[in-house]
């Protein structure tokens, strides 16, 4: 199996830094995790060096998994999750990516509801400055038998400069007919009136921006075992951008 490196024609690598991917190719096999029936698995992924993380997780019957991602470092950083949910399983993703300069950061998830009654949620927040690119590709696939699937996806990106780029692609592929799959996506700028309000009360421009961005990413790391570390690292990175 000596597959060649992906190109822009591969949908899952469409916005990637292809030369960085080629330099890293061939990648090690994805880390494979099997969460046994009724079990619980949690993982924090802090991508702060410019690397590619690939995880395949199969979540057994009635098992739960929570993944928290902070994607902030290096010229090119990618976190890719392939999740398979069995009956009644639950998957939660809380992800933040923050990029400036010429960084290219991406998070790619494929969540497959293979059996009935599983639940999944993905919350992704991106903050991008300079000429950075932040991408989230989020596919939710619901198999024909996976009735009573309940899936929700919330994707938001904040551009601090008009020269930054956010790509967001929610993708639903549903073969069952009794499912709930909600998704929302928004890309915007900091509210100018909000910033002025904070400044008119005495807060310096950079601190006002930081306060609003902190609010933008707040909550994503709630319940994470490493909540404090993730929040501190995110705030530090935000401080470098404003």
């Amino acid at each position: 199996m000596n597959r060649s490196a992906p190109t822009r024609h591969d949908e899952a690598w469409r916005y990637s830094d292809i030369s960085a991917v080629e330099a890293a190719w061939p990648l090690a096999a994805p880390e494979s995790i099997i969460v046994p029936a009724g079990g619980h698995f949690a993982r924090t992924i802090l991508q702060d060096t410019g690397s590619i993380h690939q995880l395949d997780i199969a979540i057994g019957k009635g098992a739960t998994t929570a993944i928290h991602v902070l994607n902030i470092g290096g010229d090119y950083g990618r976190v890719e999750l392939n999740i398979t949910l069995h009956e009644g399983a639950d998957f939660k993703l809380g992800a933040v990516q923050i990029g400036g300069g010429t960084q290219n950061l991406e998070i790619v998830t494929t969540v497959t509801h293979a059996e009935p009654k599983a639940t999944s949620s993905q919350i992704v927040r991106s903050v991008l400055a300079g000429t950075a690119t932040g991408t989230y590709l989020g596919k939710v696939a619901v198999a024909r038998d996976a009735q009573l699937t309940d899936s929700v996806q919330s994707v938001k990106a904040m551009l601090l400069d008009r020269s930054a780029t956010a790509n967001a692609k929610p993708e639903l592929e549903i073969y069952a007919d009794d499912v709930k799959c909600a998704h929302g996506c928004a890309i915007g700028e900091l509210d100018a009136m909000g910033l002025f309000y904070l400044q008119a009360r005495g807060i310096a421009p950079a601190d006002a921006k930081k306060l609003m961005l902190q609010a933008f990413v707040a909550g994503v790391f709630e319940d994470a075992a490493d909540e404090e570390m993730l929040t501190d690292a995110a705030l530090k990175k935000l401080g470098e951008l404003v």
Partner: protein
Amino acid sequence: MLQITNLHANVGEKPILKGLTLSLNAGEIHAIMGPNGAGKSTLGYVLSGRPGYEVTEGSVTFHGNDLLDLEPHERAAAGLFLGFQYPVEIPGVSNVQFLREALNAQRKNRGEAPLSGAEFLKVAREQAGALGMDMDMLKRPVNVGFSGGEKKRNEMVQMGIINPALAILDETDSGLDIDALRTVGDGINRIMRKPDKAVLLITHYQRLLDYVKPDFVHVLDNGRITRTGGAELALELERDGYKELAA
């Protein structure tokens, strides 16, 4: 305290203020009244430094220093407070966090030591209590889900906590019911009616002036002060209207 001389300002390309001159001394409360579009809110925004409001001519000094040279947050630290006509909602940022950060940023700018969490909460509790605002509301995100009246009350709580030398209150009375109007009026008197402070009340109606007695009333029309008088001028305006007065 505040000296505005021949102030001209544009919003975008459009001239709004066209040679406004006004002087406020410590201990005085001034009311500015005028028809829609006269430039009342623009005056508040120009004085507080809102981006997009460009001064093309004239000068403003505050405590003898050039105000227009300062950034909005520096104007706040110098003692200027703008009460917003439409207070802004800031999801995710709690009132308490926002106000503590604002107050301490101002104190830092003035070379004063920051207040601790406990010290700040004591001040916040006093001010919220005096204005009949629940502490729970102070813990909620800034203005999010507040009614129009609650937002205005929150502006007054902020003013009480920040304790400015000069308050410019832009239609703080609009959207208030009769009881809330009295509470807000009492708040303005309690916080700002002091020998070392001054207030510029921007309002459409005489109502608020029943509670907060102005020392001077000015009529702003087409970007200039066209008439100045005492508290009785507001009553005259209420009776006769701006049109009659201009004639």
